[in-house]
């Protein structure tokens, strides 16, 4: 099964564009990423620019409404993610516990939905939308 480990940095909702993390922190994080790779569990990872460089699109009354970041109402935002492949939620938790953590961020674990998680009618509906990356099998 796949899990996303979502990195939620404190205060990232207000971070200015172009702010860069500390080199020492990055080096430590790279060691951790390497350990995930060497264990064969890492599928993908990315870091995200702060919301001040992004935009939100809401749909009030069905019409798209674009708001540029930062978003005053957001309490916490995602700063990056790892996609890992493990055998259980506990294994995902165990990997997250090994992250060189600090007060500066929280990691949230979320399982990726697979086709088998849904009842047949939903599976059938989803089958009409191939862009939806829902897996029926493993891997």
């Amino acid at each position, binding site marked *: 099964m796949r899990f996303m480990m979502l990195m939620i940095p404190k205060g990232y909702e207000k971070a200015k564009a172009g702010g860069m993390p500390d080199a020492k922190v990055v080096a430590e994080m790279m060691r951790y990423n390497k350990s995930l*790779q*060497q*264990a*064969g*569990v890492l*599928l*993908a990872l990315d870091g995200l620019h702060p919301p001040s460089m992004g935009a939100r699109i809401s749909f009030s009354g069905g019409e798209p409404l674009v708001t540029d970041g930062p978003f005053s109402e957001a309490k916490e935002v995602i700063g990056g993610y790892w*996609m890992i*492949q493990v*055998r*259980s939620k*506990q*294994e995902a*938790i*165990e*990997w997250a*516990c090994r992250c060189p953590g600090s007060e500066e961020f929280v990691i949230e674990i979320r399982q990726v939905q697979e*086709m088998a998680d849904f009842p*047949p009618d939903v*599976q*059938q509906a989803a*089958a009409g939308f*191939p*862009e939806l*990356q*829902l*897996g*029926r*099998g*493993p*891997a």
Partner: protein
Amino acid sequence: MTRDPYRAIEAVWRIESAKLIAALARRVGDVGLAEDFAQEALLRALEQWPETGIPDNPGAWLMTTAKRRAIDHFRRHQRLERRHEQFARESELQQELAAADLEVAMDDDIGDDLLRLIFVACHPCLSMEAHVALTLRLLAGLTTEEIARGFLIPEATVAQRIVRAKRTLAAARVPFELPRRAEFASRLRSVLQVIYLIFNEGYTATTGDDWMRPALCEEALRLGRILAELVPEEPEVHGLVALMEIQASRLRARASPVGEPVLLLDQDRGVWDQLLIHRGLVALERARVLGRVPGQNLLQAEIAACHARAQTAAETDWNRILVLYDMLIEVAPSPVAKLNRAVALAMATGPAAGLESIDALVAEPSLRNYHLLPAVRGDLLRKLGRLEEARAEFERAASLTRNARERELLRTRAAECQKGIG
């Protein structure tokens, strides 16, 4: 800390067991003993962690505990004739235990130890079945029960295979070391075969099977990815990883919602897993930049990649696939590869040429009962409008396959030909 200790221990074991067994095996010189000590450490964890909580570095805790068990064992079992050797091992272990920075010492050569463990599990003195069982047990951390469920065999059979394999390794005094340069390539080839066999066992699982069967694909991929980091200079390892990633990308497209097999060219490419395809192509690139003559895994992965790159079946570059099959037959000649080449030839230049090429294979003894030969022949005959012959071939293919759903599919094709004849 609100981690459920029992579940956490299971997860820690999953992550640490191979490293633990590998590091211990180098020190005690016996894979079976090493696993025993690791298991004893696990039992200790099950007793203690629920009360003390999970240690900050669970891997190091398990390692220290296992080493203490090893020292106890050597003290209890000192036999006269091997006393000297065992004394040396015991004092080495004690020095390590005394070393302040155990964790660092442990991480240093863990990669080499893991690699040694893989090679020992796939040692030529053992059967293929033993290779698979030992690899899944020692490297993937699967239980005997899980292996049995994955391979649809009784648990006692798996347990026996593992016990016997360990005994054979001990009796043959197989050293815990990497193969010598002269035999490295052939030993690596058999490791890759074991991993691919595990993958295929999962890949052939059908809807309704125990989930442990398709999970074997994930286990094989994990093993392949680990190996690719251990020997990044070996193009065939990246080739196998690429092949497995790309094949796994089609897992959800290869059966219809009711479980009927869907052939590659009929699959809905929209549900192919793009993340795995991307990973497969990256692995191919890692192999390519090493600049060596491509081996069979790499060539098979290149062929798989041709399909993965084509947005629609019609866009498939059959000429390139044909060239790749020629190269594959050169390095690893096999009747099945020749059959696949004939299909590629038919797709590239037309059914008549393909048929001619297949007819040359009909006499091949190893293909005599291979259902895909008449199935492919039937397909080409149908395209040429020779429906009566096509029908007979589909019937023959249906009588040869052991897969019930596939048989149904072939019978349907035969019936379609019959209808065409009118």
